């Protein structure tokens, strides 16, 4: 009887130890990941500022940073994985939609079309500011040492950044339409043996229209999170 009990507690301790090591590995990896991403987007920010200071214009700036941008933005696919395996407690779908829309912009919209430089710069700048704030927030959170101004930045700057980014993205997609139509790129016409067709031009229009239902949902989701975080703070202060 006594030995049976001992075995039980030994097993429990082992599973608890395993859980704790898994948790420690996950935290270590996430900390490394978020530091690396913060650094990456900082590098982008610095490169953009240097280019502008040296050349005095934003023309050609996108082409200059395109490769670095694509690298770090694509790396963000890992975040979907983090949600899927449960080490980050966010919905896989929300993260998936966010990351996919970024990847779509960077690989399929800007990558293949000569486009209006201004709108591209607009959303790239917005993304850079947002991502530096977001990844440093996660990093400090994981290190349990969150400076108030980072928390403030994360839950307030999006109010302006998010709409600005959307405007930049929509203007860019819109500007790419004439070239897409002329070149017929990424499109599949009938007849073919799969009996399906795809018109990239109309697809882009549908993507633009989809911002109408999707953007408010994500925006209000952030607003609700903000209220919860700041509201929670007020309650704590009152007690003290």
């Amino acid at each position, binding site marked *: 009887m006594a030995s049976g009990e001992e075995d039980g507690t030994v097993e429990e301790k082992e599973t608890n130890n395993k859980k704790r090591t898994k948790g420690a590995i996950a935290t270590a990896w996430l900390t490394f990941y978020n530091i690396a991403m913060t650094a990456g987007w900082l590098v982008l920010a610095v490169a953009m500022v240097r280019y502008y200071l040296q050349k005095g214009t934003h023309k050609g700036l996108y082409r200059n940073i395109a490769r670095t941008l694509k690298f770090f933005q694509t790396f963000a696919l890992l975040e979907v994985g983090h949600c899927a395996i449960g080490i980050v407690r966010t919905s896989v779908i929300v993260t998936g939609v966010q990351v996919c829309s970024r990847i779509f912009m960077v690989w399929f919209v800007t990558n293949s079309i000569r486009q209006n430089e201004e709108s591209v710069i607009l959303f790239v700048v917005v993304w850079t500011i947002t991502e530096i704030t977001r990844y440093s927030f996660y990093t400090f959170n994981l290190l349990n040492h969150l400076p108030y101004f980072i928390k403030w930045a994360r839950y307030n700057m999006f109010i302006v950044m998010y709409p600005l980014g959307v405007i930049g993205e929509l203007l860019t997609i819109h500007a790419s339409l004439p070239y897409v139509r002329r070149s017929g790129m990424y499109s599949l016409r009938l007849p073919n043996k799969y009996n*399906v067709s795809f018109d990239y031009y109309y697809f882009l229009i549908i993507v633009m229209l989809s911002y109408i239902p999707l953007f408010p949902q994500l925006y209000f989701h952030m607003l609700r999170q903000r209220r919860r975080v700041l509201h929670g703070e007020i309650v704590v202060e009152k007690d003290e």
Partner: protein
Amino acid sequence: LKHVEILDAKTKDKLCFLDKVGNIFTFNPQWYPARQSIRLDPKGKSLKDEDVLQHLPVGTTATFYFRDLGAQISWVTVFLTEYAGPLLIYLMFYFRVPFIYAPKYDFTTSKHWVVHLACMCHSFHYVKRLLETLFVHRFSHGTMPLRNIFKNCTYYWGFAAWMAYYINHPLYTPPSESTHTQTLNIQLHIFCQIGNFSIHIALRNLRPPGSKTRKIPYPTKNPFTWIFLLVSCPNYTYELGSWLGFTLMTQCLPVAAFTLVGFIQMTVWAKGKHRSYLKEFRDYPTLRSPILPFIL
């Protein structure tokens, strides 16, 4: 005699109390009975319509919690609407109603026999579903949330239009398979339609009219039901088979996509049903898989 009070599950406000249990209809006329969810625990499961106050685990004072389920619509209405759509929509494409294809094709018919056959199969499939909804199915729940009708109709109507557009297109490319292979595909489709119908009849016969009892389904004299030996939800297995046959017959990518999405959804449902069978019946046959014999 019991004293019954009913509280709102979220705010714990006292909504009303009753000496003889009447109904909460009088408190808020918007809350018709189908919308009312009454439970013993705020986060627990809803009580059933058939539950009797005497037999519930409560003392002399019973506290129930009320939750508003939102606007409801009957299952029959939803099914009829979501199935009538594809039937009519596909026919519109088949007859090449104006404004779909180029004007010179208006009201023409395809020269490929497989296109005519596809229309017959697709139409028969949805007529069968409509008739089953009216005469065969015995529904466990009377209603579902109203927003489901928009979601479901978008899915069914959308896919039907997408498939029908290409199959009935003037530039449709018929499969290059031999007539022999095509005959096999058609036979698969028809075989599975009969199978699916047989399962629906068998499930209906498990449940006497008006009742909501649940029993383990078993193979009957009908050979199409012998698949119950290996599968918990053979209606979904046959449904997958039907659409597989239709996909192979038409060689149309949108049809393959519809089959795939349907398969994923039905697998989710089958696994859920399989799990609840296992939970409810101690002696549930162990050889059975949810949807695909031995595999899934």
